[in-house]
């Protein structure tokens, strides 16, 4: 039951359109700071492009995918028309207006502050207002997901919430709470300075507030991917979910431990005490738990599909998997990259190991690997899987889809592996320019060149993806039938209250936020001597 197809399609199309543009910017950045191009002589252009790339890829693109997918999940899995359709369109409109409001000053060079804001850098207030509008638009989605689930629960007392919706609402709550950190930073720290009401800013407090958002936002990006692992992949390859309970536990664990760990992004910051850094480091380790549970459950689910197809032996079943199926390919690629990205993440979260790679290109390589590949490749899979149901037209060219996924996978390896390597060699991040004739940097030239070539492969893949979706709109009309999510081997008959709602886990999430963030925030907010003069960017002197 998918009624509001235009709503979902609008979210997806806007998401993929801005993704395509930001992808071009990313490739340009890789190109002009590589040895393949002479220096453009004006770093401002680089940082302008970087701000646009990060803002779109970090805030606009994944939020739109999560929202569109969330609306589809709500209608399909609850089998009820979306409540608050007008509100949903209003949220979409806010994101459109917000994205434009933010991108105009960025294009004019009035807000080259990078998407993480970097106070005391201060850009045009319209940039921040635009980001706020995007967040507010997404909060409408959070509220709608909650309301839709609530209405369904009233009508179906005691019935287990379908897994896709359970996970979807968990993701929306995670986002609702984690976005509060950046919202506080924008409203109370940055905007007053951007509007000229204050000339100083507490950069340390701003960074701590941003870290509240910065890590859990990754898990918000990850949610559609994990939902696809559990509820699309097993069905698409002809299998079943190995354990419904395991899936629910994974999602509620994300809710609890994704949030109180963000200070591992400020290991090198002097304004946070070492004790809190240690706590956050330790809690970061627990985030591996839901991921390990998921890897185990999905591997088991995939094995079920393989054995149903006649697979034999301890590992021989892998060969009988439907490798020609793009979803199978996507999940395999995603898992490989999740493995590499997770291993790199263990280094970033360790208080001591982090010092060797802090602020180097390793970090940039790391989050491109995790987000760009493990996560985004499943966004492609979600689009491929839902598209026929959204457009009532078949996606027939499986070969082209496989080529696209392969290109993305190979492109990401070629881009990010050398990127990690130059980080280990000590190449700093956020630099617009490297002098490759310098003996200290010359050995890194070949790796950076490889990364740039990877960027071109990714661009080709991204454009191919958009082409495949565009072409589908011209295919003959065809009824795709009812959309189904995967079902568990043992479908839940009744689940404990704790796994059918969020109250307990939300309480723990907020509780841990207070214990892990309360003191550092209160201390910086109450002290008077922690502000520094703001540095205005792009303002005429």
């Amino acid at each position, binding site marked *: 039951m998918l009624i509001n197809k235009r709503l979902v399609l609008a979210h997806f199309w806007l998401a993929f359109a801005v993704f395509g543009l930001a992808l071009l910017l990313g490739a340009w950045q890789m190109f002009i700071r590589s040895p393949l191009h002479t*220096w453009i*002589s*004006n*770093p401002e252009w680089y940082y302008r492009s970087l701000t646009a790339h990060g803002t779109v890829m970090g805030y606009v693109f994944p939020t739109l995918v999560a929202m569109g997918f969330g609306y589809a999940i709500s209608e399909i899995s609850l089998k009820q028309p979306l409540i608050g359709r007008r509100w949903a369109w209003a949220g979409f409109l806010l994101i459109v207006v917000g994205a434009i409001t933010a991108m105009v000053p960025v294009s004019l060079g009035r807000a080259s502050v990078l998407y993480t804001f970097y106070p005391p850098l201060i850009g045009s207030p319209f940039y921040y207002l635009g980001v706020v509008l995007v967040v507010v638009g997404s909060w409408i989605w959070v509220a709608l997901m909650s309301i839709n689930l609530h209405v369904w629960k009233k009508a179906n007392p005691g019935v287990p919430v379908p897994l896709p919706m359970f996970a979807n609402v968990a993701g929306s709550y995670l986002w609702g709470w984690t976005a509060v950190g950046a919202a506080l930073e924008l409203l109370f720290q940055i905007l007053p300075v951007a509007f000229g009401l204050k000339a100083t800013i507490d950069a340390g407090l701003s960074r701590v507030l941003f870290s509240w958002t910065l890590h859990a936002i990754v898990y918000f990006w990850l949610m559609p991917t994990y939902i696809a692992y559990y509820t699309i992949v097993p069905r698409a390859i002809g299998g079943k979910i190995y354990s419904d309970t395991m899936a629910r536990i994974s999602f509620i664990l994300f809710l*609890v431990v994704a949030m109180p760990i963000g200070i591992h992004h400020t290991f090198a910051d002097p*304004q*946070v*005490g*070492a*004790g*809190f*850094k*240690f*706590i956050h480091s*330790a*809690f970061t380790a*627990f985030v591996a738990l839901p991921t390990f549970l998921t890897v185990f459950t999905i591997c088991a689910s995939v094995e079920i599909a393989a054995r149903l197809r006649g697979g034999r032996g301890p590992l021989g079943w892998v060969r009988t998997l439907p490798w020609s199926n793009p979803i199978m390919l996507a999940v395999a690629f995603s898992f490989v990259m999740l493995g590499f990205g997770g291993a790199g993440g263990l280094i970033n979260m360790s208080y001591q190991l982090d010092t060797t790679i802090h602020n180097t290109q390793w970090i940039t390589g790391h989050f491109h690997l995790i987000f760009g590949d493990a996560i985004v490749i499943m966004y492609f899979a979600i689009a491929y899987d839902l598209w026929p149901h959204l457009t009532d037209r078949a996606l027939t060219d499986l070969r082209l889809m496989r080529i696209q996924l392969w290109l993305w996978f190979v492109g990401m390896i070629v881009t990010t592996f050398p990127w990690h390597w130059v980080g280990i060699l000590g190449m700093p991040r956020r*630099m*617009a*320019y*490297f*002098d490759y004739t*310098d003996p*200290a*940097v010359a050995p890194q030239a070949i790796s950076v060149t490889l990364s740039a070539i990877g960027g071109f492969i990714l661009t080709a893949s991204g454009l191919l993806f958009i082409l495949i979706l565009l072409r589908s709109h011209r295919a003959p009309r065809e009824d795709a039938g009812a959309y189904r999510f995967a079902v568990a081997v043992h479908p839940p008959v009744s689940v*404990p*209250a*704790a*796994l*059918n*709602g969020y*109250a*307990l*886990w939300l*309480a*723990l999430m907020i*509780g*841990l936020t207070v*214990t892990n963030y309360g*003191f*550092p925030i209160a*201390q910086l907010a109450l002290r008077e001597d922690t502000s520094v003069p703001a540095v205005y960017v792009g303002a005429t*002197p």
Partner: protein
Amino acid sequence: MSDDLFTRRNPWFSRGVGITLGILAVTVLGGFVLLPYAQPDLKLAGLWDAICSAAGVPRTPSSATPVQPDGKLTRVVVTSALPAAAAPEAVGHGATLAQQCAICHGPTGVSRADSLNLAGQYAAVVYKQLMDFKTGARVNAIMTPFAVNLSEPDMADLAAYYAYLPKLPGYHPSQEKSAPRIVMNGAPLRNIAPCGSCHGALDNKTGSPWLEGQPAAYVKAQLQAFASGNRRNDISQQMRNIARRMTPQEMDEAAEWYASQPPTLVHTTMRE
């Protein structure tokens, strides 16, 4: 339903909360007690001191007397409000005082003796240098005797007068030369910011003079003085750190290029 959830009889509640609190307790113990004591360099007065130190409570600074710098430091605090709006009397008084400066800096503020051209220079710049000459933060055999006899209002008036004078274009035959790399890009690997990011062409920072049309010999001599440490009235060693890392060739290029530019092209103005 949630009534049943939040009771100790519900294993999901008791275990969920219990495990979370347990992890929290262990990490707090590790972060606030074990780790501080594991650091031999950390001098702790007791358990509470260890906890405060790990929580990031600022510690009182050491009571030992701070290290005194050798040589005098600038006492001028440069703010964007430094060049206060000049009254006509100030400019007039400044003009009278400036008679004694004309022999080097030129009767119209344009030097023929390879001294700095002062016509149209930012008031904050002139004021700060005079003040530094007077206090001894900057030393020059010719300038120091002049500056020691000036009062603070005198300096402000002199600054106002020179800021009031129009910049003279002068004769700049090779101004179409493209800017050298050091001026436009700096040298990121040596931590050298582009000259233009403070001194104009790209941007101007309060307290930095514009350099267009200044005598090449003067600019080069100042860069060499910063590099050798003979001049040290720059704020937080900004110029010394840059000049020390510049090659002699880059100093030549920057000085020659700025000298070749007409000062009327300076498009950045200081905030009034």
